[in-house]
């Protein structure tokens, strides 16, 4: 595995759905990562499309700062439909 970079693998399980992260593997290059991802992650028709991204290219938010990162959404109930009052006689909206 020495010098073989780590790739993150994303699968689209069927057309109409987004790609979803399923795991990772080492490969010499991106083409090999796709071939190996097919053999490892789609042996039972789990995917119709594969994305591979070298792990080092992913920038992630810092879990230690999660609180401040996501707290702007905490107190904004007015972003949700149930915040708004509608008359009872209104049957559909």
């Amino acid at each position, binding site marked *: *595995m*020495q*010098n*073989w970079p*780590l790739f993150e693998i994303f699968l689209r399980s069927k057309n109409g759905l987004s790609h979803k992260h399923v*795991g*990772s*593997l*080492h*490969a*010499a*290059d991106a083409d*090999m990562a796709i071939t190996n991802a097919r*053999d*490892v992650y789609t*042996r*039972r028709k789990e995917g119709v499309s594969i994305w591979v991204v070298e792990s080092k290219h992913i920038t*992630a938010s*810092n*879990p*230690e700062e999660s609180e401040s990162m996501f707290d702007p959404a905490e107190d904004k109930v007015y972003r949700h439909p149930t915040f708004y009052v509608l008359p009872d006689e209104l049957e559909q909206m």
Partner: protein
Amino acid sequence: MTEIQSLEKRFQDRIDAEERIEPRDWMPEKYRKTLIRQISQHAHSEVVGMLPEGNWITRAPNLRRKLGLIAKVQDEAGHGLYLYSACETLGISRDEVLDQLHTGKAKYSSIFNYPTLTWADIGAIGWLVDGAAILNQVPLCRCSYGPYARAMVRVCKEESFHQRQGYEIMLTLANGTPEQKEMAQDAINRWWWPSLMMFGPNDSESTHSAQSMAWRIKRFSNDELRQRMVDMIKPQTDILGLTLPDPEIKWNEERGAHDFGEIDWDEFWSVVKGDGPCNKERLAARVKAHEEGQWVRDAALAYAEKQEVRKASDGKTKVA
């Protein structure tokens, strides 16, 4: 409270609230080490587990059985890979993990240190060994460490085919000629006790259990899972018209479970410590495969580098 104590408390609170821990979250060093040990041993077991079964691929009795066995062995390689990947998220490199296996520093499941002497052993392994593995692994799908739990979900989905293919082999042999039936019985006789040993020492002797339970890495004790195994396998053995090599096994109405005999713990510890029938052979085969594969890994890397250079120079030509 010191800073580390307060971090540890917050960590345990998250665990108690059934939150999952993800790779970059803060975790106690011991939690990390415990997981690295457990996940890497689990991965090694999947990989070494291919050896006893691979032994029968060329001698499978027909094409249907051969296809099933190849697919199963290929699954085990995949399981090893999911687990090695999960292990790496804890900050240990793949090379280091493999090195621990190859130098004998890391353990793998002792069950694979027993030989596969006849075709019936392939049936017994799928049914009993994979059966025991499923009982161990299903609760791990809810393990507190996210990447391990997710790997286990994939593994468990695939294991059920393994167990069924094993049981079908046993069923076919059990309904075959007297020699075939005898072969199936002999395989059960040899694999039953080692399969029960797969759940580890008795709860009173198990060194890591209490902490692993508190961290929700483990959900059920060794003895609880072993009892489930006996209760699951006994009726399946009856359907085969075969018997388990334990004269003490019988239904206990009061407990609503089977009573069973005592494991030979001397044998258990001697195989764990390296003196099983195939310990040396398995490790040697693993090391040989790794060393003889070196040129493939080197060649793949050289090819990738060459392609990279070619791509770069193609780009230049176009610009010019």
